[in-house]
């Protein structure tokens, strides 16, 4: 949903090929025909909005850019109206790191997020899903975005970090300020970063006297490649990153999956009859409704799929558009719930592969399993409206359902 109080209103887009805008209401509502139109014109298109930005439209162009850290930097990863100076205050290693700093920063974060580590977290996530369902199942209707999909990832990551799950609404608000309002309002972003930093600083201080078994203590005890403890700013940046990256991304993916199942009874029936197919279905739903669009900054001129790109431009690195490329995926515009071959790029490609991909997959599987077990019949509420988030992460923010069999 677009926000009413945006300081810089963007004129509506009339020429998508030369003037695209991923914050335009048309893109927010239904980006798929736009990507198809642009892909038919060129593997890379350009806009003068956002201080000049490219958009690769094909899977191959997205892969080329993701794998080319020489010409494309990750120091800026959100396409915005402004390009504020880069400081350690807004860096969030490893997502904002380039080689050679990237690898050691990423390796610090990887061990707590392996598939085996996620198995240990799975029972807690299953319990969270059921606690949420308990709260609304008797009502016969629910906004599945605000009562279910939203709270699963935020409570799971809070549990991992060792901070109170009851602070969830605080985290959700910061993320909204950074990822949505922050595209056009620098002050909102800075305020959210400041508040997060203060919040985590107090949790770090508390652990200095009394270490815990959680992810915050894990990072505080981590050593860099020379054996030295991480600087506080590095720990804080990583904590901010985990919170930001771990929440509305998976919230969106779970929401889009439920939205698809609400309006596709055949897929729903199949997953109930064959729950073993859910992991395959999760991959297909990730492909078809990939939530995350990243960005790069061109630091050295080069060509992408034959198209020249110039330094100083941003790149909107649309993994969602890549995943709809019919050259890569037969029937790319259809959800094929049992698709066997699926090299989707929902978690990125190359060195910046999402650290939390195993967490997100586990959360999606568990969220769908528990929902379908307890609510096999549900549909979109015809009197309600589904709304979608704007910008970097796309997913339903209002998802009104009627529960139970249709009369």
């Amino acid at each position, binding site marked *: 949903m677009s926000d009413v109080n945006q300081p810089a209103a963007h004129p509506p887009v009339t020429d998508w090929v030369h003037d695209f805008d991923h914050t335009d209401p048309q893109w927010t509502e239904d980006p798929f025909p736009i990507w198809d139109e642009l892909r038919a014109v060129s593997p890379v298109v350009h806009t003068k909005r956002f201080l000049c930005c490219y958009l690769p439209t094909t899977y191959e162009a997205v892969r080329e850019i993701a794998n080319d850290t020489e010409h494309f930097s990750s120091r800026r990863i959100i396409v915005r109206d402004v390009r504020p100076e880069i400081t350690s205050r807004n860096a969030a290693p490893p997502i904002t790191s380039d080689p050679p700093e990237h690898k050691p920063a990423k*390796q610090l974060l*990887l*061990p707590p*997020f*392996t*598939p*085996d580590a996620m198995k240990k977290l799975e029972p807690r996530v299953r319990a969270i899903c059921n606690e949420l369902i308990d709260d609304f199942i008797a009502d016969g209707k629910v906004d599945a975005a605000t009562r279910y999909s939203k709270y699963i990832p935020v409570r799971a990551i809070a549990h991992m970090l060792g901070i109170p799950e009851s602070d969830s609404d605080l985290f959700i608000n910061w993320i909204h300020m950074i990822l949505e309002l922050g595209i056009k309002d620098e002050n909102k972003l800075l305020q959210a970063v400041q508040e997060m930093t203060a919040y985590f600083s107090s949790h770090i201080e508390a652990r200095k006297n009394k270490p815990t078994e959680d992810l915050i203590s894990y990072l505080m005890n981590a050593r860099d490649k020379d054996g030295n403890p991480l600087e506080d700013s590095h720990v804080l940046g990583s904590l901010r990153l985990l919170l930001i990256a771990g929440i509305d991304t998976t919230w969106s993916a779970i929401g889009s999956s439920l939205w698809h199942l609400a309006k596709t009874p055949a897929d729903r029936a199949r997953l109930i009859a064959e729950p073993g197919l859910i*992991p395959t279905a999760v*991959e297909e739903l990730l492909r078809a409704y990939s939530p995350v669009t990243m960005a790069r900054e061109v630091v050295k001129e080069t060509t992408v799929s034959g198209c020249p790109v110039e330094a100083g431009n941003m790149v909107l690195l649309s993994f969602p558009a890549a995943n709809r490329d019919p050259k890569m995926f037969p029937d790319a515009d259809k959800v094929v719930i049992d698709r*066997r*071959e*699926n*090299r*989707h*790029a929902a*978690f990125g*490609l*190359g*060195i910046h*592969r999402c650290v939390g*991909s*195993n967490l997100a*997959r586990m959360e999606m599987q568990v969220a769908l399993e528990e929902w379908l077990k307890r609510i096999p019949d549900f549909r979109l509420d015809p009197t309600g409206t589904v709304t979608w988030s704007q910008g970097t992460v796309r997913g339903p923010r209002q998802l009104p359902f009627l529960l139970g069999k249709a009369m």
Partner: protein
Amino acid sequence: MSERLRVHVDPDKCQGHARCKALAPELFELDEYGNAHEAGDGTVPPGLEDKAWLAKANCPEIAIDVIEE
């Protein structure tokens, strides 16, 4: 004559998506960072050939080779 298959993960290409481990857990192992390598010498036991091809077809980084010997 039935062919013998061997899988191999290119460690320079693998980024730890772990799709191979999910689809063919008998054929792949993950290190402490979640990056994959083939189990043992990569020999695919009879009956697991489909899983080997499936793992290859689902690796986003095209890091998996299935070698027919």
